[in-house]
């Protein structure tokens, strides 16, 4: 009996594919919902700062005066809370993971453009 069981297992193992994926050769497994990394679109931002105030790790800093948005990727835990709360669609999550960073403050910096049509020109052109 035991001989047949082991023979079956050996044959199966010889002719079946490995359960692991050949990662660098083929792409890693990802799903649509996978929380890979946070993407910020400056054009959609209204500088309401809800992402900064409700971030569980305080990774995001938004400056209203200078119209800047920055995120420390070493602090960010990619929970997606800011994406859920953002009143416009300025933030979203992409399934791919970020590539590794070596230097410590891995900050991503954006300048938010002043929306052109509606508010009559506030004067200061938001430039870094």
């Amino acid at each position, binding site marked *: 009996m035991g001989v047949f069981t082991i023979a079956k297992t050996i044959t199966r193992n010889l002719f079946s594919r490995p*359960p692991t994926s050949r990662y660098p050769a083929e792409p890693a*497994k990802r*799903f*649509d*919902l*996978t*929380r890979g990394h946070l993407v910020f679109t400056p054009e959609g931002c209204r500088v309401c700062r809800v992402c900064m105030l*409700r*971030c*569980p790790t305080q990774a995001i800093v938004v400056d209203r005066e200078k119209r800047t948005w920055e995120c420390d990727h070493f602090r960010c*835990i990619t*929970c*997606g*809370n800011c994406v*859920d709360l953002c009143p416009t669609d300025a933030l979203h*999550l992409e399934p791919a993971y970020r590539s590794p960073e070596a230097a410590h403050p891995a900050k991503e910096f954006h300048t938010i453009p002043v929306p052109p049509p509606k508010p009559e020109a506030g004067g200061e052109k938001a430039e870094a």
Partner: protein
Amino acid sequence: MSRQIVIPFGPQHPVLPEPLHLDLVMEDERVVDVIPSIGYVHRGLEKLVEKRDYKDFVFIAERICGICSFIHGMTYCHAVEGVMDLDVPPRAVYLRTVWSELSRLHSHLLWLGLLADSMGFESLFMQAWRLREHVLDDLESTTGNRVIQGACKVGGVRHDVSDQKLREIVDGLGQLEAGMQDLTNVFVHDDSVKHRLSDLGVLTEQQAWDLGAAGPVLRASGVANDIRQTGYAAYDELEFTPVVETAGDCYARTVVRAKELFTSVDLIRQAVDRIPEGPIDMKVTGNPKGEFYARSEQPRGEVVHYVKANGTKNLVRFRVRTPTFTNLPPLLAAMKGIELADVPVVVLSIDPCIGCAER
């Protein structure tokens, strides 16, 4: 007659994934007393609740533990919903139940693998983790992450799962069940496994109950105590019987966890059959005021989340009593009289999670 010596065990040890230090008082090869010390990974997470919005804290509550994270998040939400007296939509309740059971599956498969590893059965370890990968894929495709799911929020859940996807999960579990049958067959019937685990680290029923054991450790000693029986989430509408073993040794703890895999699969099937249509979350306004104790059954045992709020958006006190913390005194009792070579297996048999225990 014989001289006593003290052997330090941990915090770094091949069998320990997390830092637990034990001073073993030995007489020859036999353990006569054990003094535990923890405190290597105390993060003071509970204090952070005073600085974060109670709705955002669920992400931090989830990060208490990397394995039972979903149930930590869910229990925190239960506690806050208890304070605010919110009735979560039924679909969200069922989805939470499905995810908790998937978490239990992956945690038990992980533990079975680690146990096999601790006794040097490498191929069995690989088999257990191979099956676990399918469960993790189900979790990632429905919630967005493998272990820190982040799917729960106060007042519901963050993602809906289509009925078709739920069906696919159940079909996948059907295949997985065959694999788990083969796997648990080895754990339950194999002579070398039995020989290694039987009559090792015995806890009698009275000892386990009096020392405050929880979860599989308590059930392996013959007490039919499963917090799911209290009917939190959707468990009051699903049918199951707690898995109970009476021997109280490491083998009984293994058998309890092996059999619970099939209970979980059955619960997921029932939940998917009965899941109602409807919204998955509700609007939560205002701040909580009051206090609430919420309990859930984690893969490792009973977890208690206590929330006290005073009507501001920051909570006054958040307290977590994790299963490993309460399983420490039973572990010390179980270790008296065993041999030095058996210490790693007995320590692992309570499924220690020190990150949980110290928070």
